[in-house]
C-alpha cells in the first residue's frame, strides 16, 4: 500500500466504516510509516476540532416568526382546500384591518347565510305583506302548512342541517323563513311561476356528487336568486351546479386534500440499476431535492420536490431516460411534490 492509498482511507478509518481487511492493510502501513501516522494524527485533530465547534443557535423569536408565517388553519385538513388558493396571512393583513375581527373563525358562506337569515327575519317583521303571509302560514286553524305552500324538500333540509355551527332549531327557522319569503313574494308576483322558484331552489341533480363540505359551506342556491324569479338565472344556476359536478374526481380530491398534492409518475427504464442515479442528477440540475427514497419490489420510488418552473425541464430529462407516464395538472403549487416510480 502506498502513502497515497493509505491517506485516502483515513476518513473511513476515523469514521469506523473501513472493513476488516482494509483496516488490517492500513494498520500494517501505518506501523512502518511515521509520516502517515503524523498525517493521520493531524486529521484526527481536525475532526476533533470540528466536533467541538459550538453550534450556532437560531435567533430569539425564530419559532414565533415561523409560526406567524404558517397559518394555523393551513394545518387543518378541512380548511386547506379553502386556504390553498388564498394569499398568505401576511399578504392578507392589510385587507383584514378594515373588517371586524371575530374571536372565532366563521366560514364566509356561513356568515353570509346567517346575515341573510337575519335580514329576512327583519323584512318579515317590517314589511306588512310579508308579515301577513307569515301570520297566514302560522295561524291556528288555517290551512295546514303543506297546503299553504310547498314544504322544504328533504334535500333542502339536508343542506340546511349540513351548515356548520348552527343549532337544529335555528336551522328550521332559517328554512321556514326562506319558504315564507318565497311564498309571499310568489303571491305578490304572479308573473313568476312557482316552478321557477322551485327550480332555482332545487339542489344539484341526484346524479351529481355533493360538493366537498370544506368548500360548500353556503347553500348552493341563495334565496335572493330565486326571489328574482328569472328563468335565465335558474338555468344559469343549474348549469353552474352541473359544471361543478362535472369536475374530475382527481381535481376534486386534490382540492379536498389541499394543495400541494403529490404528482405520481412512472418511469420505465431498460436498466433499473443505473437509472436512479441518472434521475437524481436530473433532479439536482432542476434545482430539486430528493426527500425520500424507497424500494417496492424491484422498483425504486423517489420522492422529489421540484420548483414548479423547473418541472418541464425535469420531465423532458426523464423522457430521455425512459418511458415516462405522468399526469401533470395545470394548477401546480410553487413546490411540486413528485413521487416517481422507476421500474422496468
Amino acid at each position, binding site marked *: 500500500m502506498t502513502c497515497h492509498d493509505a*491517506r*485516502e482511507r*483515513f*476518513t*473511513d478509518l476515523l*469514521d469506523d*466504516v473501513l472493513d476488516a481487511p482494509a483496516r488490517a492493510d492500513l494498520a500494517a502501513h501505518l506501523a512502518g510509516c511515521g509520516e502517515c501516522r503524523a498525517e493521520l*494524527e*493531524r*486529521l484526527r*485533530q*481536525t*475532526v476533533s*476540532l*470540528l*466536533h467541538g*465547534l*459550538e*453550534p*450556532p*443557535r*437560531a*435567533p430569539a423569536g*425564530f*419559532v414565533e*416568526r*415561523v*409560526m406567524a*408565517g*404558517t397559518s*394555523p388553519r*393551513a*394545518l*387543518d*385538513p378541512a380548511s*386547506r382546500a379553502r386556504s390553498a388558493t388564498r394569499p398568505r396571512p401576511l399578504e392578507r393583513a392589510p385587507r383584514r384591518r378594515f373588517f371586524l375581527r371575530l374571536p372565532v373563525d366563521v366560514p364566509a358562506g356561513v356568515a353570509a347565510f346567517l346575515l341573510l337569515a337575519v335580514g329576512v327575519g327583519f323584512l318579515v317583521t317590517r314589511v306588512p305583506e310579508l308579515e301577513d303571509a307569515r301570520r297566514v302560514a302560522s295561524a291556528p286553524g288555517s290551512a295546514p302548512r303543506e297546503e299553504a305552500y310547498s314544504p322544504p324538500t328533504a334535500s333542502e333540509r339536508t343542506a340546511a342541517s349540513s351548515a356548520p355551527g348552527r343549532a337544529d332549531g335555528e336551522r328550521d327557522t332559517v328554512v321556514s323563513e326562506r319558504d315564507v319569503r318565497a311564498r309571499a313574494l310568489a303571491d305578490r308576483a304572479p308573473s313568476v311561476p312557482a316552478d321557477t322558484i322551485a327550480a332555482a331552489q332545487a339542489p344539484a341533480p341526484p346524479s351529481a356528487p355533493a360538493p366537498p363540505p370544506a368548500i360548500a359551506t353556503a347553500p348552493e342556491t341563495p334565496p335572493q336568486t330565486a326571489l328574482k324569479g328569472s328563468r335565465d338565472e335558474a338555468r344559469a344556476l343549474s348549469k353552474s351546479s352541473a359544471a361543478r359536478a362535472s369536475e374530475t374526481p382527481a381535481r376534486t380530491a386534490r382540492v379536498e*386534500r*389541499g394543495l*400541494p*398534492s*403529490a404528482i405520481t409518475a412512472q418511469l420505465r427504464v431498460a436498466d433499473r440499476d443505473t437509472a436512479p*442515479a441518472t434521475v*437524481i442528477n436530473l*433532479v*439536482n440540475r432542476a*434545482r*430539486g*431535492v*430528493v*426527500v*425520500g*427514497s*424507497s424500494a417496492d419490489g424491484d422498483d425504486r*420510488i423517489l*420522492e422529489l*420536490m421540484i420548483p414548479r418552473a423547473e418541472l418541464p425541464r425535469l420531465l423532458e430529462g426523464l423522457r430521455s431516460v425512459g418511458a415516462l407516464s405522468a399526469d401533470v395538472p395545470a394548477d401546480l*403549487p410553487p*413546490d411540486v*411534490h413528485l*413521487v416517481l416510480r422507476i421500474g422496468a
Partner: protein
Amino acid sequence: MAADDAAWLTRLRAGDVAAFEELVTAYQHRVYGVALRMLGNRAEAEEIAQEVFLRAHRTLADFRGDAKLSTWLYAIASRLCLTRLAGAERRLRRADRVDLERMADTREHPGAEIERSERETALSRAIAELPEDRRIVVVLRDLEGLSYEEISTALGVELGTVRSRLHRARMDLKSKLERFFA
C-alpha cells in the same frame, strides 16, 4: 423511520399546530446552523431556515415518511442553501463570511480562551472557504452528526460520493489549520 417520528408525523398530518411548533422548536437550531454554516450570513440564514419550515409545512401532507423527519428537513435545508449559493447574484457578494467570523468571536477572551477563539475563527473561515458541495457534506457529517446514509439521502448522491467529498473537505481543513496543531 423512528416510532417517535411516526407518531409525530401522524399528529402533524392531523393538523396539530402544537406538533408543528414542536417540530420547529426541536429543529430550529440545527436547520439554522446548517444555513449559517453554508451561507455565512445571519439574515440570509434565518430567511432560508424559515423557508425550510414553511416548505416542510406545505408538503407535510405528502411526506411519505420513508426518511426520518430530521433527514427530510436537512434535505430541504441543504437544497435551499445550495440553490441560493448557486444564484448568480449571491456569487457576486463578498461580505458573506463576516457573520461567521463574528460568530466565533462574540465572547470575552481571557487567557486560554483567546487561542480557542482564534482556532474557531480559523476553522469557521476554513469551512466557509470549502467548495459548496464539500462544505455541505462536512457540515452535515461533522457538525450535525448525520450518518453517511442519511447524507446520501438528504443530498441525493451516492454513498461513495459522500465519502469522497467528506475526505476531501477534511483534508482541506487540515491543511488550513495545521498551525494550530502541535
